[in-house]
Each structure stands twice: as C-alpha cells, then as structure tokens.
C-alpha cells in the first residue's frame, strides 16, 4: 500500500521520455487569446477574472514594481490552473514536484532581491535590522534577519509543494477508506463520504489560495525592494 499511495506523484514517462513537459504545457490550451473587443463566453469570463486579480494585486506597487505585473499575473494563473487541473482523477500535478516549485521560487525571489540591491542599496540593507532594537542585540539580530531572508525561496517552494501534496494524499487515503468501509459498515461509509466531499471543497480552495499566497509573497518581496 505504501508504494501505491505515492504512485500518483511519479513523473509520467512515455518510453523514458518525460511526458511531464506535455502536461505542464496543457493549461495554456484552456486560456485562449483574442484580438476582438467582444468575445465568446470563455474568453470574457477569463478576461474578467484576470482583470480582477491584476487590479487587486498591483495596486500596492509603484511604477517600477508594476513592470512586474505580467510576470505576477501569469504566475498566479499558471499555479491556479495547474492546481485545479490536478484535482481531476488520475491527473498529474506538476506543482507537487519540489523541483518545479524551486525553479519557480528561486529566480523570482532572486530577481526581487537583486533589483533592490541594485537600485536602493541602503534601503535594501536596512531591512536587516528592525527599528528600535537594543544595542547589544544587534549582531545576533542581523544574523537572524539574514537567515530569514535567505530562507524565503525555500519556504516559498516547500510551502506550495507540501500543501498540494498533503491535500492529494489525504484525498487518496480517505477515498480508499471509503471504498474499504463500503463493504463492512454502511452508515460509517456515509460519514466518511461526507468527509471526502468536504475535503474536495477544501482542496479546491487550497488550490486557489496557494496560488494566491505564492504570488502575493513574491509581490511583497518586490515591494520591499522597489
């Protein structure tokens, strides 16, 4: 059972070739572009959602920070669609692989930090020391702030991976528990099935929230550094 449980997280291969590339390239097919002002229903809903999220996210940035808006909006759309597609049965979710989340988190965080260091070096260095610390504590606090800065990309990647993976695992476990109990004791099956439905609703929420959190934190790091 142990191997069965983690089997859905193995990257799929066709004859040894990574088919994960194909699966990662699938979400853009669901988001068409258009050159017209008035479109079909799918494009209209998607454009409305994108406008809503981009306004919500980019109001807090100044002009320099808003140059990142394309990157951040496409990031949140990618993570949200990939997580939601992973809720379908038998599908493979690329965001469960730590490698992919690290590949997303490290360049974005590094870009934000290096932008800050290049433009306003005093402000960027000032983040290492919170205001009003007593003098003897300063060396230790600088070390702690440095560590907390360096751990930000790791935390971003691991947070996303762990949340999505844990959700998928829980659904697998409770689903197989429901199946197993259906032959033994019917009322408890209904209880467990209700738990499964609640979990699915939670997973949909988690999928969206994780996308939001990832993007929000990147934009926060950007805000600090522009």
């Amino acid at each position, binding site marked *: 059972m142990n191997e069965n449980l983690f*089997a859905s997280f193995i990257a799929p291969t066709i004859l040894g070739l990574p088919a994960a590339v194909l699966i990662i390239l699938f979400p853009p097919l669901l988001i068409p572009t258009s050159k017209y002002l008035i479109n079909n229903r799918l494009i209209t809903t998607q454009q409305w959602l994108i406008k809503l999220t981009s306004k919500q996210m980019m109001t807090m940035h100044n002009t320099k920070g808003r140059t990142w808006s394309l990157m951040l909006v496409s990031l949140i759309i990618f993570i949200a669609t990939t997580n939601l597609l992973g809720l379908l049965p038998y599908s493979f979710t690329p965001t469960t692989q730590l490698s992919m989340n690290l590949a997303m988190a490290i360049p974005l965080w590094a870009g934000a930090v290096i932008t800050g260091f290049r433009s306003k070096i005093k402000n960027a260095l000032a983040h290492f020391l919170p205001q009003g610390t007593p003098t003897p504590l300063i060396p230790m606090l600088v070390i702690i702030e440095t560590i907390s800065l360096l751990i930000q990309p790791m935390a971003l990647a691991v947070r996303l991976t762990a949340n999505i993976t844990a959700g998928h695992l829980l659904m697998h476990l409770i689903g197989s528990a429901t199946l197993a109990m259906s032959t033994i004791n019917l009322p408890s099956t209904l209880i467990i099935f209700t738990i499964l439905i609640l979990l699915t609703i939670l997973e949909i929420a988690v999928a969206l929230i994780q996308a939001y959190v990832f993007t929000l934190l990147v934009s926060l790091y950007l805000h600090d550094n522009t």
Partner: protein
Amino acid sequence: MASVGECPAPVPVKDKKLLEVKLGELPSWILMRDFSPSGIFGAFQRGYYRYYNKYINVKKGSISGITMVLACYVLFSYSFSYKHLNTYHLAFLTSEHERLRKYH
C-alpha cells in the same frame, strides 16, 4: 456549363480530405501527408482551431465545450497510469484497481 454534381478535372489524391479518399488509396494518402515538424505543428493548429471554432468561439457557448476537453484529459491521464495501476504486488497488496477489474 457543368452542373453542380459533375467534377470535370480529377482532384489529386494528396489534396483530398480523409472522408473523400477511397479505401484502396488510403496507404498512398497516408504516405503523402506532410510529416515534417512544421507539418505536424500545422496539423495540431488546424485541429485546435477546428475544435475551438466549433464549440467555444460561438455566441452562446456552453460549459460542455471545456468539459469535453477535461474529460479527454482525464482519459489521457488514465491511459498513462494504466500500466502502473495494474502492476501486481504481493498477494495481499493487490491494487484496488486490479481487484475491481478482475472481480467485476
């Protein structure tokens, strides 16, 4: 002037659509298709736009336009994991999928 049903000059096999190719001509039709990378990409593009214009780019598109795509995606992922779901482990550890298949 020729009437509507008559076709004066014969159309070459290569340019016929699939439903118009006769059964004997099928191997030569398949061999004459363009299998270069740009040809394959063109085929995918045409297929995508055919589906898009039929089901999604209409005035009152319904949700079935996108649910058909998602259903195909589920079937595709199932075919990928079919081999692994059917792997035979130890006697008391047969996969649920295998049991459902064998004893249905």
